[in-house]
């Protein structure tokens, strides 16, 4: 008994010593699941190059925002930018730093899965439950190259709250007044029709099984699983095939200084209209909760690296990298981060 106690105690003290000795700076982040693969890759490389460990938990954008508000993490990550209302709920100013871009694509299950062209109006009416058949004359009129069957349309949406849903409903709200009034924009919304699948894999699972179904997933997921993807007509009237280039183009527009902008329904001629930034959120003033200057400095270095050198990693992983205009804005935002009121880097 006594021996055991001694043993446990010594184990414990060894553990404690190790913990105290290892006071090397470690950064902690939490948030969106969408950029998780990219962030893991970036943080892994960063650890190998700079020796700074970054621990990222992909608990969802909402969770990331909550954790940042509680100040339990060094940075949060979100697929949706904070609304003015949400920013007011934070006690001190929060900055948005764009890291990469994602797109939401429409995928479907039709005989032989032909290439499909869709306009914003058709998409809205399908998801409102107004267009009920695939051989509806509006769909047929722009898809003359295929013979569409007399099949009911089953709408599949995400059942879990998701940045993907946010981007998609944000797009629908922009292109349709009716959608904006009836449903609106959100990570979870009250869907007028259809059934829900959990996660990209849940939606895909249902689509693969239900003939005549249509749903939305992330571009990366659709590409990796080789799902049929529809072209979507953008604001300039061009039918755009969603890929990392057209997604990147969507963001190459005049951005506001805080980058809090939804780029869905983009003005860019070559841009895919259902695209979005994904952001890292940090406090502008880094001296809170007795954080050391070193820690704040490491965080700023990491962010700087992510928008500069780190930008070579998104494309290999099927994410779209930041266009030049966005990188400039991101750099300026990082420069505005302060410790005791003085900027950390110049």
């Amino acid at each position, binding site marked *: 008994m006594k021996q055991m106690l001694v043993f446990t105690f010594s184990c414990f003290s060894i553990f404690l010593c190790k913990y105290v000795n290892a006071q090397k700076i470690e950064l902690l982040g939490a948030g969106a699941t969408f950029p998780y693969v990219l962030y893991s890759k970036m943080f892994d490389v960063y650890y190998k190059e700079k020796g700074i460990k970054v621990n990222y938990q992909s*608990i*969802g*954008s*909402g*969770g990331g*925002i909550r954790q940042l508000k509680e100040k339990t993490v060094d940075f949060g990550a979100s697929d949706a930018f904070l609304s003015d209302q*949400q920013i007011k709920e934070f006690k001190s100013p929060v900055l948005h730093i764009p890291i990469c871009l994602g797109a939401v694509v429409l995928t479907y299950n039709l005989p032989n899965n032909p290439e499909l062209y869709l306009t914003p109006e058709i998409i809205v009416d399908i998801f409102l439950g107004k267009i009920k058949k695939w051989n509806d004359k509006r769909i047929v009129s722009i898809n003359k190259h295929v013979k569409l069957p007399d099949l009911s349309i*089953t709408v599949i949406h995400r*059942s*879990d*709250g*998701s*940045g993907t849903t946010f981007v998609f409903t944000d797009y629908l709200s922009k292109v349709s007044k009716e959608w904006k009034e009836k*449903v*609106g*924009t*959100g*990570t*979870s*919304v*009250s*869907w007028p029709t*259809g*059934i*829900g*699948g*959990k996660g990209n894999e*849940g939606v895909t*699972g*249902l689509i693969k*099984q*239900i003939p005549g179904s249509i749903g939305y997933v992330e571009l990366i997921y659709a590409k990796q699983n080789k799902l049929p993807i529809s072209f979507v007509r953008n604001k300039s009237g061009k039918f755009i095939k969603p890929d990392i280039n057209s997604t990147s183009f969507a963001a190459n527009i005049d951005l506001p200084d805080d980058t809090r902008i939804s780029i869905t329904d983009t003005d860019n001629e070559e841009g895919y209209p259902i695209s979005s930034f994904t952001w890292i959120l940090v406090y502008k003033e880094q001296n809170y909760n007795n954080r050391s200057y070193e820690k704040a400095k490491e965080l700023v270095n990491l962010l700087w690296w992510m928008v500069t050198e780190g930008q070579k990693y998104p494309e290999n992983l099927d994410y779209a990298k930041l266009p030049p205009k966005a990188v400039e804005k991101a750099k300026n935002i990082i420069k505005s981060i302060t410790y005791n009121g003085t900027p950390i880097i110049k």
Partner: protein
Amino acid sequence: MIDKFFKNILKLFGFIIIFLGLLIFLSLFSSSLPSIKKFGLKFLFLSDWDPVNEVFGGLPFILGTLITSLLAFIISLPFILSVTIILGVYFTEGFIAEILRHIIDLIAAIPSVIIGFWGLFVFVPIVREVELLLGVTPYGVGIITASILLAFMILPYSASIGKDAMRLVPQDLKEAAFSLGATKWEVIKKIMIPYARSGIIAGMFLSLGRALGETMVVTMVIGNKNSIPQSIFEPGNTIASVIANEFAEAITHLHVSSLIYLGLILFLITMLFNIIAKFMLKKFKI
């Protein structure tokens, strides 16, 4: 000395568990206060769930939870009884008993996400075919699909408790009945089941509790439609499933607190079923 020490340790841990239970209840209650203040008890009867406009009502989920659990319970009932009787009376030992027991234990050991995937990719298409034959909208996913999978999942719990209860029936009671000329069927019906009744019922309620809280399988096959299901072939949603779905990305206060409110309701429903189980146990005890 050591006796007293041991007793105190046990007491301490016992109290910790009670205390934790209480704490869970209190924290659920306090976190759901914003929603309770806004919607009150009306929450139980409202059927809108609209996170964008911050209108929340729990009725579709409460109904979904109760319907799937009770349906699962009813579907599993004949299987539970047969397995209980077979393992408790006909094959108490030997090769077949071993195999059957192992298979049932194995069902309990399958992680629910695996059952969910199997359900989504194998079982749902079968249900769809059946629905086509019946002439209802062939979603494949829906209340009935979730209930059948739940029934399958909860089977091992009640079956294994029921089986043990049947085996506890004293040998002399059975022999006395046989000596009076009772057939095997009569012994099972009139002696063994009444004697083991409280054990069998306890097992059933335990499994019902599991059905109420099961999340993963339900989420994957129920269709996640946040409205009151019009028939058992329609997609619906349950409390556990909507919490799992929406909690991570719920951003507004009211949304989070409404989800926790639903959690509180599930807590109370489970407690209610436990109390009923206790009551039934007392009533049926011989």
